[in-house]
């Protein structure tokens, strides 16, 4: 069998993904495609996104039907050059289908992948992947959890060869819903204690939104624990913030109420699927979440502005990147212009909003990989 044949398979986005629904292809049989091109739309239980071409070449065959669910790893299409005959392509497909075994519904794998550790009396959930000496720590934003890194976590392990850890901040995800005094220092101190508890003396910090301010605060408190900073649509670099979003997100308790707020997170509002709304409501309906979010917001906002700016901290970090979705409706992308001095790469992604690490995962992962290199 020729090496010049490449199968396109159903990707695995995050721990819990077992299957995805192929909605439609954005390319046709016979089209030339380049590695990294978005070639098909897939919807999962958590989110909708695009399948990227695993290699460059001609899309010789599509073996799927639209609006149909396929397991992770299932063959979707075949890439090969013209030098490969149709018979060889067909033989590849037949062989793949004959040998393919869908992943088993194995909940234990999921459970063991997600770990819990006691930090100052709080139960903190985290997921650690990869085995490198160097560590990257992913810190999500307000109202988020470690699943916000669905399209980044595995890819960063593959790109960098480093250990990559993502955690749920207090009040978020499956971590304890108690948030101390709700201050920014409480969050930073908890993450510092977490790093020490899991044996990470120094890490490349990657922070999204409020998680960016947490990373900056850690750098200001414990510069010796920070290798580099990658800040994505980050708080802590200016005063403006969409207060209507924060208040709306906290007070919403129904699908109808929360949907318009969640849509503000994305440039492409279609990414706010029914399942994404359901998952968010399930989180918000856990005991203590509303109070925790309100407390964190109060620790973070004064009047209508962000309380703390860390622009000088950023200038003192040995290496940093600032990444923004140009269509961010939560924190203005113009805050990336507030940076002066230091070794800071700035990246603006045109067609992405506040959740740029989901909407443009490839660009964001590349930028993070460059920062931690």
């Amino acid at each position, binding site marked *: 069998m020729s090496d010049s044949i490449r199968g396109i398979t159903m990707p695995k986005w995050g*721990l*819990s993904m077992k299957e995805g629904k192929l909605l439609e292809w954005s390319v046709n049989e016979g089209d030339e495609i380049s590695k990294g091109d978005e070639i098909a739309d897939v919807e999962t239980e958590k989110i909708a996104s695009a399948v990227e071409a695993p290699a460059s070449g001609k899309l010789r065959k599509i073996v799927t039907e639209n609006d149909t669910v396929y397991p992770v790893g299932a063959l979707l299409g075949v890439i090969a050059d013209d030098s490969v005959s149709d018979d060889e392509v067909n033989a590849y497909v037949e062989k793949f289908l004959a040998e393919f075994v869908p992943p088993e519904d194995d*909940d234990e794998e*999921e*459970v063991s992948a*997600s770990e819990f550790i006691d930090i100052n009396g709080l139960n903190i959930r985290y997921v650690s992947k990869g085995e490198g000496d160097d560590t990257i720590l992913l810190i999500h934003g307000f109202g988020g959890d470690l699943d916000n890194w669905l399209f980044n976590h595995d890819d960063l392990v593959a790109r960098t060869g480093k250990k990559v850890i993502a955690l749920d901040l207090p009040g978020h995800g*499956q971590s304890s*819903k108690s948030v101390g005094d709700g201050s920014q220092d409480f969050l930073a101190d908890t993450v510092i204690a977490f790093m020490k508890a899991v044996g990470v003396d120094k890490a490349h910090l990657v922070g999204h939104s409020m998680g960016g301010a947490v990373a900056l605060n850690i750098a200001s408190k414990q510069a010796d624990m920070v290798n580099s900073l990658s800040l994505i649509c980050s708080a802590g670099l200016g005063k403006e913030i969409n207060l209507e979003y924060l208040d709306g997100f906290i007070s919403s*308790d*129904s*699908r109808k109420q929360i949907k318009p707020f969640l849509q503000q997170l994305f440039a492409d509002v279609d990414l706010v699927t*029914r399942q994404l709304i359901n998952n968010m409501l*399930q989180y918000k*309906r*856990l*005991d*203590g979440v509303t109070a925790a979010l309100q407390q964190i917001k109060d620790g973070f906002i004064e009047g209508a502005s962000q309380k703390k700016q860390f622009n000088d901290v950023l200038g003192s970090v040995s290496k940093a990147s600032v990444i923004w979705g140009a269509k961010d409706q939560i924190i203005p992308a113009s805050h990336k212009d507030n940076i002066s001095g230091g070794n800071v790469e700035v990246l603006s992604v045109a067609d992405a909003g506040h959740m740029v690490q989901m909407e443009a995962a490839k660009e964001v992962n590349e930028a993070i990989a460059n920062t931690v290199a």
Partner: protein
Amino acid sequence: MARKITYQQAVNEALDQEMARDPSVIVMGEDVVGGQGSPGEMDAWGGVLGVTKGLYAKHGDRIMDTPITESGYIGAAVGAATCGMRPVAELMFIDFMGVCLDQIFNQAGKFKYMFGGKAETPVVIRAMYGAGFRAAAQHSQCLYSVFTHFPGIKVVLPSTPYDVKGLLIQSIRDNDPVMFLEHKMLYTLEGEVPEEPYTIPFGEANLVREGGDVTIVGFGRMVHLAAEVADKLAKEGISCDVIDPRTTSPLDEETILESIENTGRLVVVDESNPRCSMASDIAELAATKAFSSLKAAIQTVTAPHVPTPFAASLEDAYIPSVDQIEAAVRKVLK
């Protein structure tokens, strides 16, 4: 969220967590401890199907066995609720409602209204309902439409373990009388349930499947049959909204009507006998509030107007089937 537990375990966990959180929550009923007054955990079977097993060991005398006198202990639970407790009384089988109905609809359901809003009655009455258990005519009925008829009583019909836990916690914290009805054939159903306590508001339907051609409204166990039919027909290109109202009182009319306005075709699946049922209630809703959207006559799929048969073959024929639901969907599409 990765952890899976059963529908039955979800009931137990909700009771356990609420008893731990709030000392005014008590559990009472026939055999809910199961040891006939024995002090030992060994004898504590936790009800006929073991749903409340383990609660006695954790919460002691706050879970109590009662005499086999529904009229007495349901009345006691209602009275305790008006005096500051949050009792969860187990009626075992909903079919036993006949002997304690006055305590529920004529007393508990009316206190707030008759005492000028000054009396709260935060009582939850749990009961098993539904056919398929080979338990014959006196232990197999649905009867939720009876309680839905009474103002002042909320009626909850969870179909999944996730909904069981969130809705039971909501029921216990609610200040009005709540009938919390569990389909006995769903007790072994597994699903993902968060370990932490959480609530689901009443009157919020769950859209179990999303499609544009036909609206199927199902109740309790019928939700799963409706979803099975929707999945089958999706392969033929027929897409169905499957709506699980989750509570019949209050009822999320908005979600149902919005769906009908979109599809123009309605099938209601209700395991009850057909007269004065949820099926006829939802059909009435559509006919009076969405008539101009309807493109076909409404179809209902229900049990026939007979008591639940004991003969297994007849019981199977009595319960609405996926074949009947599929035929109804095809009929509204004609």
